């Protein structure tokens, strides 16, 4: 029983960051119809920036995470303006190829700049685990969980309660009508991509101190983000949030009780199973964001 609780807690901590990753990707797909292969690289980008700011420039840990998110936002906006805006009228496969090219270039750029040796981001939290009843957890992980929950709530507020969120939802439902109603659709696209990228970068900055930072870390995470998005139904934000937690729990319990070697395979088996049995995703809501 204690073990179940411990696995559950670990899964929830990991699930928060998975949810951030999934939301960013599903938002970009839902609003822009772009299969974003650079998502995992933005995650790695965030983690490397956390390393740069904390370990090399000795900035404050919390400030560094915020700066990493801002840089992710800027890089996302740049990718959108340079690569996606000119290809707006092209089909989804063409855009997908460009994103694959950008993915390869970004990943190897990271390898070129930082080298292949894994980096560790130091954190200001104590290394002794907190023991809460039957389970124990590192303070750093609790902070990550708290931060992701705050971000998730903030994101829902942005989408549900602000004019900007309303414009994004309108663009998602019908971009032509939204444009006629005076929504700057092109601006919304850039903002959506930048926002999704910022979420990936902040997920990387938050997980950087827990796991090691290396140039290929984005590959697996990028594919897992796709698994989360498919689990929740493409374009469905609530689905992606739930999907993030579900995938993390599946991985955690699967690794604990079935096979730790195949831990990373569970996500892909989930994808294949979902698409074979229920291609619209587990939580399909028709044509809605939020």
């Amino acid at each position, binding site marked *: 029983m204690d073990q179940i609780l411990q696995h559950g807690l670990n899964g929830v901590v990991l699930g928060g960051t998975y949810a951030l990753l999934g939301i960013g990707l599903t938002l970009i797909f839902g609003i822009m119809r772009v*299969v974003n292969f650079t998502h995992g690289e933005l995650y790695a980008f965030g983690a490397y920036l956390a390393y740069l700011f904390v370990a090399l420039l000795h900035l404050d840990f919390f400030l560094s995470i915020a700066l990493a998110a801002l840089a992710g936002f800027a890089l996302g906006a740049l990718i959108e303006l340079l690569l996606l805006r000119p290809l707006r009228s092209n089909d*989804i496969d063409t855009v997908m190829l*460009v994103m694959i090219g*950008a993915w*390869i*270039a970004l990943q190897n750029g990271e390898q070129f700049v930082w080298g292949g040796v894994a980096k560790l981001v130091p954190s200001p939290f104590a290394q002794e685990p907190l023991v809460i009843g039957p389970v124990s957890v590192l303070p750093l992980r609790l902070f990550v969980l708290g931060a992701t929950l705050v971000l998730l709530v903030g994101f829902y507020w942005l989408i549900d309660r602000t004019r900007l969120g309303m414009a994004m939802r309108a663009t998602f439902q019908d971009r032509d009508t939204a444009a006629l109603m005076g929504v700057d659709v092109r601006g919304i696209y850039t903002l959506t991509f930048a926002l999704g990228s910022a979420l990936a970068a902040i997920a990387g900055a938050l997980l950087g101190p827990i796991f090691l930072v290396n140039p290929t870390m984005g590959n697996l995470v990028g594919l897992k983000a796709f698994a989360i998005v498919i689990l929740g139904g493409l374009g469905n934000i609530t689905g992606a949030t739930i999907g993030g937690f579900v995938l993390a729990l599946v991985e955690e319990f699967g690794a604990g009780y079935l096979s730790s*070697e195949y831990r990373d395979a569970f996500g*892909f088996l989930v994808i294949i199973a979902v698409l074979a049995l229920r291609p619209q995703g587990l939580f399909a809501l028709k044509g809605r964001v939020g």
Partner: protein
Amino acid sequence: MSARLGGLLFLALAATLPLWLREPYFLAILTSTSIFIIAAISLNLLLGFTGQLNLGQAAFFGIGAYTSALLSLGFEVDIGLPSPVVVDPKPVWIAFVGAVLVSGLFGGLIGKLAFRVRGAYFVIVTISFAEVMRMVALNWVDLTEGPMALNNIPPLSVWWPGAGVTALVTKAHQDWLVLAVGAVCYFLVARMVRSRMGRALIALRENEPLARSVGVRVTHYLVVATVVSAAIAGAAGALYAHCVRIVDPDVFLFIYTVTMVIMVVSGGKGTLAGPVVGGLIFGLMPQALRGTAPPEVQWIIYGVGIILIVFFLPRGIVPAVADLARLRLPRPRSRTAKVAP
């Protein structure tokens, strides 16, 4: 007609290359490039002629490599049956045929599963499939040796009149065999594309609902195309296993699929010559860059290369060159009599 002549000339040139290019290093490059061209031809059948972006092609390549290597080495594995499954070493050509069959079988399975969905979903299913295969190869150590890799894979062998079965250990002989397999695959795809089935595939690429409405059995043809494509990729993988003579789980890496995609897209997807042209460029370029740039810079060039090709040559090199050639030839009058806008 001239295209066919050009193709035969190209084949003749490639076949005589080992006679005057005696440096084993260059021949090894030529062989590995040819193997990748075969893989690119297999990808082009799906990506180019049916429009389905299969990003798991490396899975079929890897399955072919592992199947052929395991059959020719023999293996013993316990899969929960009362007694372990024991397979004695088989001659290389039987292993090769086995690899083609097993890859084709997996192609059929994945095709049946994946073609319930299209577009982004299809892409992600195929990536996931390759990734799962890589993890199986990495973790099923009893069968695949995991990260220790399968070593000492026997070289390719052929039956030769008067000499019986001989192993092809020289680079030139290997190169000829790879070239022969490549030519067979090329003509197989060419035949398929020009058949009734090829027209059906192209019809569904251009307009699936319309193709469906006139009675084209869309899913059936897609699955058949996937089986053939997977079998050809498996043949390429088997050739790879016996030429390089070591196979590790990295053959399933996504980067190999990406290499095939670049070859097809840059050469011209949906053209027969496209994968060959693209394959030559992107197969030989890394070798040319090897001395001057570290691998990550090479990959950056690859990545930027894809983006530039999509922006400036969206249809690929072969159609662009064909357009140029057509412009320079005097056009028949009836074609030029267009209404000015």
